[in-house]
């Protein structure tokens, strides 16, 4: 087993209320220090609700955002400068909105050629051969190359987005909600394509989504994010079937499932903590039935449980239910 990606203490703060000079008025910790390993050939699912920092984390990983602290290592080599051109050859990104990730005024060929030209400096002949190869792999017809993005449906556009990411020849793909904008019947096509490509090219995926069922269906391991921090990491088949963190349990119980009667796991209206005024200790404490005095003092660290699952909780659930 070799590590494809290692994140150590990666965090991101956003200043709020910037001034022309001097320090900002406040700081939001969008991503609390995250430490994660991703093995080669693995699909790591990252789930969380809106505002949990999952997209920020993804953008740091491809160098579109500079982390506030922490390091990224790809295949054992640290990356210290946030230059997307350096990142681009090793790690690529598939965007949520397939249409807006394609420049409306460029043909698909121009879009596909950009990474080949600027990252790999290929000649025109080599480029067109490579594009042909990739298009065959994602089941797109070559005549699409001379069309413009608006002529494609969401599913086709997302295939083009995936093809572009493949063209950079990176081994790691960050998939940021790659199917959320697609209709359910098209969603499955794209998910299956991603699975095929993974085996064909030996890729490693970070699959980010708010949809628990989709993440469970495609991932080897799943990391659950809450309020900018990882609260649980474990094998996909276990995380939702036998949740250890109370928040994961809440997520799993809230998902509508055929055959399960309707119930509100939380009767009262609860809201995410205020990012400008984060609570002391565990961020989930106010919503948690198991919270104790300890939870209000310091935030629990992510620790490995006897069964191999990592949980950030002083009172992890037993995993029986």
């Amino acid at each position, binding site marked *: 087993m070799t590590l494809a990606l290692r994140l150590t203490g990666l965090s991101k703060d956003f200043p709020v209320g910037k001034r022309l000079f001097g320090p900002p008025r406040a700081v939001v910790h969008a991503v609390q220090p995250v430490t994660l390993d991703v093995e080669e050939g693995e699909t790591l699912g990252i789930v969380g609700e809106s505002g949990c920092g999952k997209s920020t984390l993804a953008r740091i990983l491809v160098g579109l955002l500079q982390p506030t602290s922490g390091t990224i290592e790809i295949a054992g080599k640290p990356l210290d400068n946030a230059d997307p*051109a350096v990142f681009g050859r090793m790690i690529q990104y598939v965007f949520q909105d397939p249409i*807006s990730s*394609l420049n409306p005024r460029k043909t698909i060929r121009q879009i596909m050629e950009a990474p080949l030209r600027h990252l790999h400096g290929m000649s025109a002949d080599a480029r067109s051969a490579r594009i042909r190869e990739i298009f065959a792999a994602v089941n797109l017809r070559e005549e699409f190359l001379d069309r413009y993005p608006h002529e494609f449906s969401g599913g086709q556009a997302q295939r083009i987005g995936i093809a572009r990411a493949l063209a950079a020849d990176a081994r790691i793909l960050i998939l940021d909600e790659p199917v959320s904008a697609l209709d359910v*019947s098209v969603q*499955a096509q794209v998910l299956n394509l991603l699975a095929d490509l993974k085996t064909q090219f030996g890729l490693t995926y970070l699959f980010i989504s708010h949809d628990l069922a989709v993440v469970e269906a495609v991932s080897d391991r799943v990391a659950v994010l809450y309020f900018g921090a990882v609260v649980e990491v474990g094998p*996909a088949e276990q995380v939702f079937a036998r949740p250890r963190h109370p928040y994961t349990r809440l997520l799993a119980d809230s998902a*509508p499932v*055929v055959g399960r009667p309707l119930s*509100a796991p939380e009767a009262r209206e609860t809201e995410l903590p205020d990012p400008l005024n984060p609570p002391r200790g565990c961020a989930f404490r106010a919503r948690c039935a198991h919270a104790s005095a300890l939870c209000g003092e310091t935030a629990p660290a992510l620790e490995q449980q006897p069964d191999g699952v990592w949980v950030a909780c002083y009172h992890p659930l037993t995993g029986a239910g």
Partner: protein
Amino acid sequence: MSGFFRLLARNRLALAGLIVMGLVVLLALLTPLLPLADPDVTNTANRFKPPLSEGALLGTDHLGRDLLSRLMWGTRLSLAVGFAAAVIAATLGAAIGIIAGFYGGRTDNVIMRGVDMLMAFPYILLALAIVAALGPGLMNALIAVAAVNIPFFARNIRGITVGIAHKEFVDAARLSGMTDARIIATEVLPNVVPVIVIAMSTTVGWMILETAGLSFLGLGSQPPQADLGSMLGEARSALITNPHTSVVPGVMILIIVMAINLLGDGVRDALDPRLKSGALSRPMPTTLVDRSAPVPKPSDDGLLSITALETQFRVKDRVYRAVGGVDLHVEPGECLGIIGESGSGKSVTALSIMGLVASPPGVITGGAAYYRGDDLIGAPYEVLRSLRGRHVAYIFQDPLATLHPLYTVGDQLIEAVRAHHPTPRAEARVRAISLLKSVRIPNAEQRIDSYPHEMSGGMRQRVGIAMALANDPDIIIADEPTTALDVTVQAQILSLLNDLRRERGLAIIFITHDFGVVAQLCDRVAVMYAGRIVEGGPTDTILNAPAHPYTSRLMACVPELGQGRRVLAAIPGLPPAVDNLPTGCAFADRCHKVQPACRTADIPLSGPSDGNRVRCIFPMTASSEASA
């Protein structure tokens, strides 16, 4: 590009502007070649000759100069100066705007503060100050007009650039290894150019007016040279005695500027993608109804029964058959689910009932919707209005967009109460608070004075539900009310809706794309595909033994929590476009069981009226389902 000219030519006013402008420009270009008198030669013996005099078609001015000749030369000058000012202002302004917008941060901050400072002047003061410094003269007037317009362009283009710089394709370009300069040149600029062209075409007329204005004040072109403005300025002293000397240049300015404005509007309409689809139409108070076929009689006596409903969108010469003949009925206290993918017509069906489909482009072209025996389709506006919210209420998808951002939730609830029951405000407020309590909003007495943006998504949707309950309706139509919400909040909202319906005996039409939600909430369900119901019946039956291949395969391709890692059975292909539906079954092209018979004729919805009805001639059976 050819599409652009076609669009421009289709706009008759713009075409008229183009022709007039073309003529004026042509004449201005030809002026030196035409047999005209010298515009600057004075002949005081011939002063103030009226128009149509011999040797002076438009008469002469106070120095006896030929007005026609001066008009032609003046037009030439005014056009040149106006266009030059527009090009200079647009180029510099756009460059500043793109740099500020693309780099953002401190660069943006410093540049935009400078721009704000220039815009803090009433523009003519700045122009006057510049002319005062440089001295009167046409060139200096041009510089002044261009300079005062740069901030307007810069601010406009910056706004557009910020939007583009945050688009995902710019991130993608970065990840493709492109440098900032290349991204500006090949990703940002091509998307900004149409905006620059629009801004220029709508301001050229203004620039011509401005330079003419400075000349009118005597600060632009200096005698004897004349542009249209200075001709008007010189003629002012003889306005009362010899008005023709004023009218001639004034009318010319009017013609030029009007032609440019017409043309500019045409250019804007042709380049703005939103206008292409006719999107800037405002929806009318009720949907247009244009039923050619006879109105069907009520088929049963349910609370609400929809029969053969057809709704179309007519955009340009295309007809999108969004709803192609839908039958539904709802009993009191019942929850009916409508499930389908986007574009299946489920929302349009729901909105058609109360005439809330945006129109134009929506038109209800057939069918009926009987509420307690009265047809709502085509009912007069006042009848529909009195039923909306009182008997049939709606809950919409995105609670931030569906609440008015500038009124407190209390104001909006009070309005809902008073729209149908004229009650004193204080009384309505008490009712509003009790409504908020009934949807379990904590601290309702304080929350009532909150604005929507001060609440979380779940809270806002509770307000949306409270508003729907305001007049104790019989039916609530909920159009994907939880799609925009997080999963934990969705669970709360669904259970609230379920409790309310049991407490109050509400009928609910619940529109969703999620089988899990339908399974938990609905008594009966209708599955829609390409504008029609393909299967309908009791929820349990359909979820356990779907009869239509579409239902069965759709359920198979949606992952469900708790089933672990698996390969999904995808449906190949795409839903058909509703402006070009095939004959027969719309699902035929994607169906694994398709037979030639599926494509020959319309397939009816068949089956027992109280059981599972399906629009398929080869429905799934228990055995075929097992093999699928």
